[in-house]
């Protein structure tokens, strides 16, 4: 597959997420699940065992009222462009960085379920199927035919709505465009976001919205110092929000460390 797509002019799909616009409604999470046939939660699932390719975290500045501030940060696979942590650890080439799109792909059909890639990912963007996927009776009719559901015991994650990318390519081909050219499409989350906080496009195309806003002064990436060169850019005019992209803060007094408290 890699060898097939090499000769084409590469796209570098990426995202910009305006944290200041996100009100944490969670529409993107649901849209993502609907689009990618991610099953509803098993009753045993928690925020640590769930399947949320896209997860909106509630972050705060750690101060007390009235200085206390909250923001919402949607985190999905950051599609690291360099030293992609998950790609080189997979023992059976089930993960790859597609040079044609810059999308970090996951091949559930080949996944052994060793979860090494999950340990490797600093963004916790990879999820394991702890249970057999199950949809309430009748709901299976609403499954997306363009996306294969995954089985129990394999790892999955955001792939920038590969199904939609594929559809877009077919459309382009049908409309007689030269095959292999980068196509324009919109992942489900960007489409669903009611406040337009999530924007998607080709970072190689200077005209595209992400390419533009990635250059903005207040845009940042998560754990930039790791050198993973992620393709998901965030933006906020609030300094403390930009700080949350840095390494973790040691626990403050009052907040018991080691204990998961109901707060994203």
């Amino acid at each position, binding site marked *: 597959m890699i060898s097939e797509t090499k000769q084409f002019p590469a796209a570098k799909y990426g995202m910009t997420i305006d944290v200041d616009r996100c009100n944490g409604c969670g529409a993107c999470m649901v849209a993502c699940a609907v689009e990618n046939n991610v099953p509803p*939660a098993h009753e045993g699932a928690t925020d640590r065992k769930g399947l949320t390719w896209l997860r909106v975290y509630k972050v705060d500045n750690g101060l007390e009222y009235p200085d206390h501030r909250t923001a*919402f940060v949607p985190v999905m696979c950051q599609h690291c462009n360099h030293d992609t942590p998950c790609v080189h650890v997979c023992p059976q080439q089930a993960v790859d960085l597609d040079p044609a799109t810059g999308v970090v792909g996951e091949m559930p059909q080949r996944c052994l379920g060793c979860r090494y890639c999950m340990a490797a990912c600093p963004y916790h963007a990879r999820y394991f199927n702890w249970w057999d996927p199950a949809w309430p009776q009748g709901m299976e009719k*609403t499954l997306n035919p363009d996306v294969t559901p995954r089985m129990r015991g394999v790892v999955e994650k955001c792939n920038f709505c590969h199904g939609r990318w594929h559809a877009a390519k077919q459309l382009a081909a049908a409309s007689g465009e030269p095959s292999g050219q980068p196509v324009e499409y919109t992942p489900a989350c960007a489409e669903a976001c009611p406040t337009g906080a999530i924007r998607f496009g080709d970072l190689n195309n200077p005209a595209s919205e992400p390419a533009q806003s990635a250059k903005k002064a207040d845009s940042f990436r998560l754990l930039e110092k790791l050198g993973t060169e992620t393709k998901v850019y965030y933006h906020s005019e609030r300094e403390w929000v930009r700080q949350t992209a840095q390494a973790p803060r040691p626990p403050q007094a009052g907040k018991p460390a080691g204990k998961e408290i*109901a707060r994203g």
Partner: protein
Amino acid sequence: MRGPVQEAAAAVAAAVARLGANEHLAVLDLRPGRTASWTYRRAMASAKNGIYIAAGHPMADAAIDLSKPKTILSLAVPVLAGWGTPGNVIAQRAGFHLIQAEAVESRTAAMADQWLRIQPGSEEALGKGLLQALNGQSPSAAAEATGISEQQIAALWNQLKQNGPALVLGPADSPATAQLNQALGALGQTVVARSEAPVPLKWSNTAAAPVDLASIEDRSIRVLLIDESTPAESASGTYLPWSLLERKLVPDNPLVVTLGWTREGYGRHSQFVLPTGVYPEVADDIPPAVDSVAATFRMSVPLVHAPEGVVKPEEFIARAAGMEVAGTLRERAEAIHRAGRGTLFTYADGQSSAVKDMKVDDFWKALQAGGSWMDEAAPARPPAVAAAGQTAIPASVSANDLPLVAMFVDAPSSPLLSKIYQESNLHLGPGRVALNPDEARVLGVEDGGRAELETLAGRISVEVSIDPAVPSGAVLVASRAAVLDMCSAGSRAKVVRV
């Protein structure tokens, strides 16, 4: 073949036949302003002792023009979290300074320019306090209730006055809000009346006027038909606690039929729950959002076939009143086309075209394709301020009870929403309450543990989440029908460990 639908129909017919002189056949519409609502009004007009109860905003025809205000004081209204048309709100966001007065740091509070942390359920009190400040009295009672000083309240009032035009958004049934807006000159400026999309003349001539629940005398409704099929996006505003409805029912076996897609709601109190289709299965029109100034007409178009055996509430209720209806949406569209006002916006190509230049069939097709009709801008006029709404349940006042903060979550709903409250802790899950860690320690309940929530209205088993964001001494309730039955905002509850 005789299924539950036929049985229900028969039961209704029998009950209607037995209607006493001052007994009513009533329809409760949880989402007024739709074409179906007109059908109900016509049906009730034709039916014997029929009344049409519109749940929700007493100022149903009032719209908020967000382009006007420079300052907005929101009394716990989720302005930035799904209120109105989110896209429009965000578009206007830069234009106004938002002050959110709320007990917890809700999504709106988090994104507001200013967050006033007030005591749970003291929104109305703050409103009254501001009125006092306006009249030059000292808002001592308000300060006491809200937990913010008189000076702050006075300062807040000045802030609103000086940075006008200002607007106060308050609870649906808050008289104080209305008076404040009056005082701030918002009425007719930012709070304007919105005319409804045209309807066929024969409808408007033969339609019962909406009745406010409070104005119905107690024990007078024998047959109550509830359309719960499409709950409004902020149903917490429109959901009427059952205890209020129950008061109006006749004492000797009244008949309640709920047409909805869940047993969780009024279904729990009904003799019959008839299944209805949900959004992607049925065609329905969408009432204009509170922040759209002009009248609109949009339709949700069915994407999949509704399963066997679901009922169309419109048809069932009409039939109950001896009416046969079909194609009402089309009739409405024709009426709009006949009026010839406004433009049609089609999302597919982002074009908007004047209705009068369109053929009626094209108009109808465009609507079915997701097009949206918008009325032309009319000169702004103040809305008719309705009387203060339903009386809330009396709140218990025992000392050790916790003030309730009810937050609406759209539950029960698609299992995929479990992504946001079960598989992440973004939302408080249905049937969950959140407590401050200290509070939880005192009560001896753990995170994820079960407890009972007790109010005057009753007890309900809940799951507890521990959240330092909840102010100490309060309990955050992810409200659902079952919870809302028990507690309106500001009522007090007790969390009892089991």
